[in-house]
């Protein structure tokens, strides 16, 4: 997630995370047999499903609409109560408090980097088990591989992705033209983007070449797009949990160095951590290119009065193994403390929210990419994509991204702390205050201290 949330919430989340990890659990979330449809049939009276989420503004309205439709379809059987619990880090902090208090919600929509913690906390029933126990509800093969890859550990899907986004490259064609770059200038690789950014900065007075929100998500993206894992071993996806962060591999050094050079030479525009500021700078025509989330597509469209394009995030590694990491959030069904009927009902809700019809509607209202592949074939979606090349670019990128270890991103419960550790040194290097190699080494060792601490507390 690109938005940096309130410091207090993050602090509490971290404090509570370590406290919870101290329970010594290191399971994959298996907590007995996943309940099937018979559990729901055996229930007396309507089953209430509490859904906690961190969606605000239009996203929350769109979710509420879907929930309303589900409730109407299941009147007398299942009733969903969707509750906003603050922004994503707040939701996680509240959920962590709820674990200690044994008052977790039936269903939790939690953001990408909480995946490692939720996996370790052992409070949820793996989505894969629920899908197998409830045939005909949601075919996991319909979920886009990149999203399925992100929310899987040891090859098993743990949560159902709901709202997913990807990093994109937004290009101001006017500024490229002013810089004398032809309309078909290739911008598929990082080197090509960096070269174009330098040209714009050199040839167009007062224009920046590239802007990106200044948070650690972008360092993770540069790493994945270079085709190397962010954490060892294997991003924590294959065997055991991730035990260290890697920021100094030659491929990473090259990719991060290329963007860092843009910033230290003045061709990169620093607008701080907030993604909205980068969007504003792009809309004002101050910068030729922008790395930003696909979720920003709607806002870019609202305010930009010049021709622009949304292109796939540029790679710097081989296409077969490299690709951006998905962002967004996924639905986790909670096990301990919830009846079999409630778990089965929660699964029905998750399956409904991930269905092609729901995903098409939610995507159109919010700009998030639909996680269900079947949406692409729907006539309404085809029409939408024909009119919106920026949205089509997101879907194309999703479908092209390989389900590899590098593109899955790092899976560790210490991820929120790691993000905070890496941010300071990288900002300092991009501002030209610290040599990049020193900054990367500092960030790596700070992050590894936090991973060690987390592993110790989690008994890994």
């Amino acid at each position: 997630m690109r938005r940096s949330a309130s410091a207090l919430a993050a602090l509490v989340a971290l404090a509570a995370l370590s406290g919870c990890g101290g329970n010594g659990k290191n399971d994959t979330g298996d907590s007995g047999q996943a309940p099937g449809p018979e559990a729901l049939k055996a229930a007396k009276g309507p089953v209430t499903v509490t859904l906690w989420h961190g969606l605000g503004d239009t996203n929350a309205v769109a979710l509420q609409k879907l929930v309303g439709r589900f409730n109407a379809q299941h009147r007398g059987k299942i009733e969903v109560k969707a509750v906003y619990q603050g922004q994503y880090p707040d939701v996680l902090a509240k959920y962590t408090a709820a674990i200690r208090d044994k008052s977790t919600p039936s269903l939790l929509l939690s953001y990408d980097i909480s995946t490692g913690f939720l996996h370790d906390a052992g409070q949820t029933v793996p989505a894969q088990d629920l899908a197998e126990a409830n045939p005909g509800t949601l075919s996991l093969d319909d979920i886009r591989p990149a999203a399925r890859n992100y929310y899987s550990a040891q090859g098993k899907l743990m949560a159902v992705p709901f709202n997913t986004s990807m990093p994109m490259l937004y290009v101001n064609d006017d500024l490229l033209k002013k810089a004398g770059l032809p309309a078909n200038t290739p911008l598929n690789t990082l080197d090509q983007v960096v070269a174009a950014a330098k040209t714009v900065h050199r040839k167009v007075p007062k224009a920046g070449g590239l802007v990106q929100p200044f948070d650690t998500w972008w360092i993770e993206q540069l790493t994945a797009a270079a085709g190397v894992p962010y954490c060892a071993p294997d991003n924590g996806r294959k065997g055991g949990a991730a035990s260290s962060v890697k920021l100094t591999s030659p491929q990473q050094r090259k990719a991060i160095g290329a963007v860092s050079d843009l910033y230290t030479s003045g061709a990169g525009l620093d607008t701080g951590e907030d993604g909205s500021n980068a969007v504003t700078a792009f809309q004002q025509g101050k910068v030729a290119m922008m790395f930003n989330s696909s979720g920003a597509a709607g806002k870019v469209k609202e305010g930009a009065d010049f021709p622009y394009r949304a292109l796939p995030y540029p790679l710097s590694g081989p296409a077969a193994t490299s690709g951006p990491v998905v962002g967004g959030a996924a639905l986790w069904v909670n096990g301990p403390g919830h009846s079999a009927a409630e778990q089965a009902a929660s699964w029905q809700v998750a399956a409904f929210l991930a269905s092609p019809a729901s995903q098409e509607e939610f995507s159109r209202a919010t700009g998030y990419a639909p996680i269900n592949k079947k949406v692409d074939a729907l006539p309404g979606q085809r029409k939408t994509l024909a009119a919106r090349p920026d949205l089509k670019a997101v879907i194309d990128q999703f479908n092209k991204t390989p389900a590899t270890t590098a593109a899955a991103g790092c899976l560790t419960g210490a991820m929120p702390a790691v993000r905070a550790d890496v941010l300071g040194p990288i900002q300092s290097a991009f501002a030209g205050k610290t040599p990049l190699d020193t900054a990367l080494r500092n960030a790596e060792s700070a992050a590894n201290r936090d991973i060690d601490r987390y592993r110790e507390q989690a008994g890994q």
Partner: protein
Amino acid sequence: MTVTTTPTRPTVTEATAAARRPRRSRPPLRARDTVRWLWLVALTVVIGFPVYVTLLTGLLPPQDVAHGTLLPTRLTLDNFREALRNVPFGQQYVVSVLVTALQTGGQLLTSSLAAYALVFPRWRGRAVAFAVIVATLAIPGESLVIPNYELVTGLGLRDSLLGITLPFLAAGYPVFLLRQAFLTLPREVWEAARLDGCGDLRCLFLVVLPMARPQVTAATLWSALAAWNGYFWPLLITDSPDRRTVQVGISQLVNAESTSPGVIYAGTTLVLLPTLLLVIVGQRFLLRGLARTSPR
């Protein structure tokens, strides 16, 4: 005639005196006035500009927000409609007012009682008690969140007004503030009241608190501000949208991936406006209250 001349004489003298006075002191006064006015204008700009930007941005269409327009050519109410559509601000405003009243009232009551006990009656160990109270100021709020959550939930007060305010009904800072204020009061007055047969509670409410009005006002403002601005705790301990405070409501206008600044500013204006109106309408009383309690 005499009747008319008699009263005019002093008027004339007053007028001449008044005319003479400024003539003598005009140059220094004018310089001082200019500085004072410049200072006031600067202060007004510093305070007024953010309020202006908030009001204006809430009324601008997205494109103008993106371009940072300060002098608008077109205005819209869309952002306000969107903010009101997403969040039940009316209900949340009522909750915020109740929370602020309850929390501030509770804090003032407990802290004035504590400060009174620490200053007037002499008892063994009050220095230690005061040290313990001051030490609580050093405990970071974050570390108390989880224990408070467990306690309030254990008491069955989750998702209730009392649950939001309970952990804050006693606070160290107002105790400290009022204790220092009470120490400066003449002890003889309290002793006289006691000799006249005044009980401790009557002494506190009828003698001590009225004498310490400026500090009581300061403590009230501190408590009310903290209560009004509370975000994380009210969010944590409540679940229903209509039991939440406006600060939680505003956060709901923030969209994780792509924020609409216009809508957030519109929401902020909705929250700010009643408070602002209250200050504008009530400033006369506020100033009068401050003036009356100025140094004796």
